[in-house]
């Protein structure tokens, strides 16, 4: 029976109260020591052949007969009112089928009503103004240039600190201030004032992090097609069921009339968690023209309008006893949310919970500005917050004369400091130990001396990570078992490049005791699929994996029932082994043979994700170590080696999990050293909307990376014992590198990225301070 319960869930580092349905498909967890055949093996991706041959179909590749192309006109102003909009010239261009704008599109609220699909006020450079739909892209683009818009520029603000001043221009006129949700989000435990009073040492710093762009190689886009009153959308999304829900609501359609498909997607990293305006526009345009409509953003639009990791300004203060015991933490974070926001990441997440500290106060100020709205970006908030917290921990270690690792172990949290519950598993200590060994932590003083030469200085740093990744209900799966001994797994999740298809095939085959190639996984389609949540928050495997296993176990049970009757043997003695029915007499009969008398029929196994434990926290952990070489003449930072050791429960596939670890570390490296969107403050204009100006790492930038998992099957977390790993490996990378750079230079760079100009400035600052001190000493003597 389905049961409705209220639970506290953790998603992307935040806690939410949710009402959910749980269904009791109870499955015995795989015990840690239980030998498994397929789960835990380095199985190559099941969709590898599609991807290496170019057969894999992405949303960009969808082509339908009679398909039209849409191009969106975007605001060149950071804040303006549209006084006049004349689309007549564009409409007259041969090949143009439709021009949509606020003049003819329905008023569909967007961002919870903060704006509309086409608003008459634009609030950032890139805000949607109109859309041309034409026979081909060239014509649509040509027509965009024929649309005449008269804007009345309004005062704008792009600096979040300025936006907080009472006389600052307001991004949303109807709001009393520029704060998302009207006020800061404050968390407090213990007594922070008291805590600082008790401290022997207090350190404080202000950290700045940049705006980072996802730059998924497949830009956002949709293809919409109507068949009567049914809408089909191919969308480059991390959440087919979410897009269905959002579009059905936006267009006033019943859910069963909307089908969303995503077979392959060229990267999302959080920016594709929700439906974009382009999807709704494509759907409307397709309805109005009676033809399929494709809208694919170009790189420029992608970098203006599809989200970002928002910039932060963080003030962090730590108090500790002489032995290193933390007595108090204060963390204030100002986050540049851009023009629209329905939630906000919190940079203070790690501060609240990475270390055992009785007195903690955090403030998160998410601020509206006239810049492109942020979106989730691989461990939103935690990457930024960990950079500040772990940098400050190193400053504290320095002030106390303690080894940074020792300081962290001193404050190791055995129970979760927010919920006061123990963890199902916490492999952070193992991660520290293994990582320290792999980087040569104990010998680092020697290595530094030996390797620093001329203008080159070598340094070491470390940082730790906590994140959710428990997954949780609801999620469903079906396993359709065919009479020839093959099976199809059906679920409504999606593979966003993380290897979900492969892991689910392994889990289903394991549970069925079928060979891997007898199992096919169908996902990314709301029509065939049963509900599964978005692929984000490192929750896909831990959410959908147990549902798939439950469905497979259910199918297997039914298979044994049927086999027992067909073979006229007692059910208890029968087992499935590698696609065969094994009898007590030692016979092994292929499933296809046993089922043959039934002809064309099917067994349907059903499974649901059960609840998470009430009395424990399910989290993921890890530690990373960096070795860097800094050139004090040019300010260049060269990362020589990164060691990443993480604990995310059971390792289902060591091959694909290593890809995830590398991927996270490499993205973190780019964030630490290189990536930054630059905005011209005088014009509210991002000037780095290309992959030439917004630099991401190339293959030649990647240092030696040693990536390992602490393989700790977590039977209390869920029946497959796995937790998520998509986000954890990006979280501590920048912090570890920043700490290594500070170790190399003896001074800290408080701002990301750690670009040569900042390194040189920090060195200059340190030199100036030293000269001043020496000058004072000279005067004194």
């Amino acid at each position, binding site marked *: 029976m389905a049961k409705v319960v209220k639970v506290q869930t953790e998603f992307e580092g935040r806690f939410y109260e949710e009402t959910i349905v749980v269904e009791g498909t109870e499955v015995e967890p795989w015990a840690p020591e239980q030998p498994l055949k397929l789960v835990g093996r380095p199985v190559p991706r099941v969709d590898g052949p599609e991807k290496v041959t*170019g057969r894999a179909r992405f949303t960009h590749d969808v082509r339908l007969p009679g398909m039209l192309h849409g191009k969106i006109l975007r605001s060149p102003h950071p804040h303006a009112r549209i006084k006049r909009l004349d689309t007549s010239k564009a409409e007259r261009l041969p090949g143009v089928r439709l021009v949509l704008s606020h003049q003819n599109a329905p008023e569909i609220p967007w961002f919870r009503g903060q704006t509309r699909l086409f608003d008459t006020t634009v609030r950032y450079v890139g805000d949607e103004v109109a859309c041309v739909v034409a026979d081909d892209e*060239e014509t649509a683009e040509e027509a965009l240039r024929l649309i005449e818009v008269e804007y009345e520029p309004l005062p704008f603000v792009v600096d979040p600190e300025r936006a907080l001043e009472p006389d600052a221009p307001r991004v949303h006129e109807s709001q009393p201030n520029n704060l998302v949700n009207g006020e800061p989000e404050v968390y407090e435990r213990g007594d922070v004032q008291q805590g600082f009073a008790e401290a022997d040492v207090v350190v404080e710093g202000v950290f700045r992090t940049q705006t980072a762009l996802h730059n998924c190689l497949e830009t956002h886009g949709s293809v919409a097609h109507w068949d009567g009153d049914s809408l089909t959308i191919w969308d480059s999304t991390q959440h087919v069921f979410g897009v269905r829900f959002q579009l059905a609501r936006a267009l006033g359609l019943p859910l069963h009339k909307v089908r969303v498909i995503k077979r392959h*997607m060229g990267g999302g990293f959080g920016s594709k968690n929700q439906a974009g305006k382009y999807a709704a526009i494509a759907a409307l345009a397709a309805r109005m023209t009676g033809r399929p409509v494709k809208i694919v953003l170009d790189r420029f639009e992608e970098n203006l309008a599809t989200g970002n990791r928002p910039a932060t300004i963080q003030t962090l203060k730590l108090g500790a006893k002489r032995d290193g015991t933390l007595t108090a933490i204060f963390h204030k974070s100002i986050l540049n949310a851009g023009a629209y926001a329905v939630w906000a990441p919190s940079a203070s997440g790690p501060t609240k919970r990475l270390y055992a500290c009785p007195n903690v106060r955090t403030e998160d100020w998410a601020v509206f500005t006239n810049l492109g709205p942020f979106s989730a970006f691989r461990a939103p908030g935690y990457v930024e917050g960990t950079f500040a917290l772990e940098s400050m921990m190193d400053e504290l270690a320095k002030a106390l004369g303690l080894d940074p690792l020792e300081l962290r172990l001193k404050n190791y949290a055995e129970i979760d400091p927010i919920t006061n519950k123990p963890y199902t598993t916490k492999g952070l200590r193992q991660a520290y130990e293994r990582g320290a060994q792999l980087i040569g932590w104990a010998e680092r003083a020697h290595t530094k001396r030996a390797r620093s030469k001329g203008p080159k200085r070598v340094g070491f740093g470390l940082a730790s990570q906590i994140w959710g990744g428990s997954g949780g209900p609801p999620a469903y799966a079906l396993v359709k078992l065919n009479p020839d001994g093959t099976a199809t797994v059906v679920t409504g999740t999606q593979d966003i490049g993380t290897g979900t298809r492969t892991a689910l095939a392994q889990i289903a085959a394991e549970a069925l005791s079928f060979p891997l190639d007898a199992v096919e996984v169908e996902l990314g389609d709301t029509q065939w699929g049963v509900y599964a949540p978005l692929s984000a928050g490192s929750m896909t495997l831990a959410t959908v994996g147990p549902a798939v296993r439950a469905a497979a176990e259910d199918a297997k049970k039914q298979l044994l029932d049927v086999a027992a009757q067909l073979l006229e043997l007692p059910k208890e003695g029968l087992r499935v082994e590698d696609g065969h029915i094994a009898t007590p007499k030692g016979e092994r009969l292929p499933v296809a043979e046993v089922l043959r008398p039934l002809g064309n029929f099917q067994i349907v196994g059903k499974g649901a994700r059960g609840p998470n434990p009430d009395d424990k926290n399910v989290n993921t952990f890890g530690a990373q170590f960096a070795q860097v070489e800094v050139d004090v003449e040019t300010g260049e930072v060269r990362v020589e080696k990164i060691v990443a050791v993480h604990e995310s429960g059971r390792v289902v596939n060591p*091959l694909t999990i290593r890809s995830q670890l590398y*991927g996270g570390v490499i993205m973190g490296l780019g964030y630490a050293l290189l990536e930054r969107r630059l905005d011209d403050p005088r014009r509210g204009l991002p000037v780095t909307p290309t992959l030439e100006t917004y630099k991401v*790492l190339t293959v030649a930038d990647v240092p030696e990376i040693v990536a390992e998992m602490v393989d700790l099957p977590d039977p209390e977390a869920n029946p497959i014992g796995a937790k998520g790993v998509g986000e954890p490996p990006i979280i501590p990378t920048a912090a570890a590198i920043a700490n290594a750079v500070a170790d190399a230079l003896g001074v800290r760079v408080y701002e990301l990225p750690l670009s040569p100009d900042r390194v040189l400035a920090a060195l200059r600052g340190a030199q100036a301070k030293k000269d001043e001190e020496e000058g004072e000493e000279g005067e004194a003597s």
Partner: protein
Amino acid sequence: MAKAVRAEPEPELEVPVPVRGPERGPIKLRVNGEKHELWVEPRRTLLDALRDDLGLTGAKKGCDEGTCGTCTVLLDGKPIYACLRLAIECEGHEITTIEGLAQGGELHPVQRAFIEEDALQCGFCTPGQILSVKALLDENPNPTEEDVRRAVSGNLCRCGAYPHIVRAALRAAKGLAERPGR
């Protein structure tokens, strides 16, 4: 030394040079060994011609401005960005796309190595990466790790599959070298 020059009358040209466009016209392309005749404007890029006119969507449009590498194809065996090349400029050349790599249903050794080393995640950059590696191995069957890095330096991978891509290239090289008859 340079000098400012002349206003002499030009001699008449024997053969007038055909000027094509701006309207659509016929162009001939050889792709994966097959001849095609397309009806396109001179401004058509090779990438759009492949994807939209020939339905070969293995080459992707990640940026359309020569900055990502997802559109990489081989022109006479050399990797190029199809987005920065006019289709009309490819007449008389041999183009190879990812669709032309597997022979008779059998994957090319580079493709196999990419699967075995998990040198891909989302797979969007993968066709371009594979073609860059193939071009390298055709020219240099024994590449060093450094050679591989140089060869794929124009193919971004936002998923960060780089370490596995390097391994896959080296594995493919080894496999090719060990193949009988080479």
